[in-house]
């Protein structure tokens, strides 16, 4: 099973630390020490605030990704249980943005590259679970309220099994009640 980061809206306070951590992890630069206009702030997850909730929305790393299915240049691949966009191959066709039902993909101007006419190269951008950084998703690590959890196969099994055990325990009451009648 592919891994994904799950947010808990009951804990999220909308501080956007996750977005900053995401940029720090992917830019590979000390963004706090350079001119704010000197770099592009392109986080791979987005804080969504409504009247009721705040929670970052990011890629679910689907088992049958719609984005992967529609990509005409096959630049969306599965690496280490994560669905990852190869931005060097992306042609910016926006098909994946259209296909994703969560709005987890956006288009960004890639730093340091340009097109034949000199204009900026705009490519698709989405959560890659910090694949290759070694420490796992930065957003999960920095969240001050522990609102984000990395759900891997073990975690998923643990959660689902706990629910099954609880519902098995609860349903014994149903039949106890039936016998009493």
């Amino acid at each position, binding site marked *: 099973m592919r891994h994904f980061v799950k947010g808990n809206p009951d804990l999220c306070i909308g501080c956007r630390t996750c977005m900053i951590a995401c940029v720090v992890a992917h830019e590979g630069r000390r963004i706090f020490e350079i001119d704010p206009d000197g770099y592009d702030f392109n986080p791979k997850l987005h804080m969504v605030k409504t009247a009721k909730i705040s929670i970052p929305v990011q890629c679910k790393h689907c088992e049958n990704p719609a984005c992967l299915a529609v990509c005409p240049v*096959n630049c969306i691949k599965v690496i280490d249980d994560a669905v990852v966009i190869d931005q060097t191959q992306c042609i910016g066709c926006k098909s994946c943005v259209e296909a994703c039902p969560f709005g987890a993909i956006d288009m960004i101007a890639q730093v340091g590259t340009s097109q034949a006419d000199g204009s900026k190269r705009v490519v698709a951008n989405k959560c890659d679970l910090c694949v290759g950084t070694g420490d796992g998703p930065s957003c999960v690590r920095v969240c001050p309220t522990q609102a984000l959890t990395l759900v891997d196969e073990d975690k998923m099994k643990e959660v689902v099994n706990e629910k099954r055990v609880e519902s098995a325990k609860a349903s014994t009451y149903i039949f106890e009640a039936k016998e009493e009648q």
Partner: protein
Amino acid sequence: MSKYSRYVVADSSKCTGCKACELACFAEHNKKSNGVGFTVGTVEVPVTPKLYLTKLEAYCMPIQCKHCEDAPCLNACQKHAIYRTEDKQVIVDENKCIGCKDCVMACPFGAIAILPKSEKGTFKLQKDKEVVKVASKCDLCEGIEGGPACVRVCPNEALQIIDADCETLAKNIRAAEGLYASRF
């Protein structure tokens, strides 16, 4: 027609954990997609049931979908791959499912699992040759003659279809009779 959706519940005091329900579920659903109705020797894909035997220390029972009236899985699915039939059953459209796992997390019973999808005896593959995995949950044997296979095969008759509306009516009548008996 029933007022509420029906569902199957197991009596843990009768269940022996034989998994006949899981096998029957797989065989019955595979008859539709794979054309095989038997398990031993005829199936080359893993057994993928839609109900999940859960063992506790003292007893065991299969856990399956309750076909909730305000289903969290249906509400969580952004792809609209989970829908409600005219019979009020909650069903996953496996061709629409993209395997985002939202429904798995949303279900409070653990009644949904992400399992590989097979068709005609082989795995269904994606563009990148990865196996298609979809949300798998009880569909109350929608479109299958004889109703839920799990109920039919259970050797101890531990499983039964519950119709909350009929049950409530029966209970109401019993309670009314009780009131009559205890009148003063």
